[in-house]
């Protein structure tokens, strides 16, 4: 009875075909994700490299979830960051209830997919994010990359993965230089070059780089500092003080607006 009253008071909505409604939501999500800066993840000899364009030093796109699992996100910062926290909480609770060995990327990726698919179908606004769940195996064949889209679809990749806008162009550039057995500097160089494209030179200060290293002990995740990244990049424009300054200004500006209420992206 209450619902009938509500409907009568509201103006009669136009009929929108379900196909159109879903398409509008997908277009909305895709458009806003493409406005953010992209990210690539690739396997290399010692594990998995994740390289993101991100000028902020404090608002991370790439993070540790568990011993051998990392998380990366592009799009709206507050949305992928709450997904990241949920992932850490889930993984830690699961490891506590069962064993550390029982925490795996596949089941976490499925949970993310279910949640994101549910939001896409049932909420007015879909999540404006794409995320990656990466797990480094004890042997190279065990490395896994799960790329999860805004509508909950999961892509399981075993070589590399590109998230965000211009994904196809970036994947093309990465593919041409790809080698599963390359060392870390070569992987960084190619990943950063693929992100930057032919017209720009990658600069360490604009990149957020982290690795899952097979031989790093229990916790495989490690962030690379600018010097390590800079050393791997072609030595045209090294990270001078000017570049560091601009990075600091950017992160300070972002700190005042961390949720990104207007801008969909952290970087």
């Amino acid at each position, binding site marked *: 009875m209450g619902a009938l009253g509500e409907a009568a008071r509201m103006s009669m909505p136009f009929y929108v075909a379900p196909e159109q409604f879903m398409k509008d939501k997908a277009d909305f999500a895709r458009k806003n994700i493409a406005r953010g800066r992209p990210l690539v993840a690739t396997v290399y000899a010692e594990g998995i490299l994740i390289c993101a364009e991100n000028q902020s030093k404090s608002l991370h796109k790439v993070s540790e979830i568990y011993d051998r699992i990392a998380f990366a996100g592009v799009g709206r910062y507050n949305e992928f960051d*709450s997904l990241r926290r*949920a992932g*850490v*909480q889930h993984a*830690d*609770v699961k490891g*506590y209830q069962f064993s550390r060995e029982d925490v795996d990327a596949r089941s976490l990726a499925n*949970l993310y997919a279910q*949640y994101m698919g549910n939001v896409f179908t049932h909420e007015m606004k879909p999540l404006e994010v794409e995320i990656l769940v990466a797990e480094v195996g004890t042997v190279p064949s065990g490395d896994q990359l799960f790329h999860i889209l805004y509508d909950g679809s999961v892509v399981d990749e075993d070589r590399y993965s590109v998230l965000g806008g211009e994904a196809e162009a970036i994947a093309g550039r990465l593919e041409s230089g790809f080698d599963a057995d390359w060392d870390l500097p070569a992987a960084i160089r190619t990943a950063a070059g693929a992100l930057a494209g032919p017209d720009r030179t990658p600069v360490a200060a604009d990149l957020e780089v982290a690795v899952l290293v097979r031989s790093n002990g229990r916790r495989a995740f490690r962030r690379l500092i600018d010097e390590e990244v800079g050393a791997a990049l072609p030595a045209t424009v090294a990270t001078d003080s000017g570049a560091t300054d601009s990075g600091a200004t950017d992160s300070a500006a972002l700190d005042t607006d961390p949720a990104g209420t207007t801008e969909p992206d952290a970087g």
Partner: protein
Amino acid sequence: MSLPMFRPQDEPGPSFTGVLRRVGLDPFSAVAAAAGAVPFEVRHGTTIAAIRYVDGVVMVGDRRATAGSSIAHRHMEKVHPADRHSGVAIAGAAGPAMEMVRLFQLQLEHYEKVEGSPISLEGKANQLSQMVRSNLAMAMQGFVVVPLFAGFDVRRGVGRIYTYDPTGGRYEETDFHADGSGGRDARTTIKLGWRPDLSRADAIGLAVRALWQAADEDSATGGPDAVRGIYPTVATITADGFARAEEAEVAERFVTVIADEGAQR
């Protein structure tokens, strides 16, 4: 298991025990014992000690667990890394103590992952204090846990030691402390040998001597077991992090202690 998505106002923050409570796994939900119930015999851990030296802190613990007057376990680990720059040693009821260590380790790592930076050393000490206090209901039923916490304060560049009482009271020690049934004997030995400029080798030597004296006086404290090759746990915590001393090095220290003891007779 589902993905724990909390509404912003219900978000437990960086606390792992907070998350556990939200998902209905409160680790400290002790059931009150009926009036007049007698605590049953459980395994107990005994002597633990921490000594400050020039580079940081050395922590030691014997390996014996007792249940009443019998030896329940000969190679129990009582000194554990809490995270990269701190360690926790435990005395008291072994079951709740080991669970507390596990929760404490998870709490520190969970915070670090969620927040992106580790807790300060004092913050870690306070977290442990809250866990000991949460165990009060169990402590009142006889299952007391008394941890000893030590770490390297990377912000101040010094080693620091914190002791606890069963109510969660937290006290910072200046130079050294020992707890457990043989703690008093160990403390006396350390007090006589402690100097402000102890080297790593001297600090380990002193800690091992203290355990020897504790095992000499206290039946619940285990000494070095050369027959089975079981030696007390010795770990150092410095700017480089938590590191366990090799068993061979500990065994060698005991040879020195035994030689000195023999020479005095």
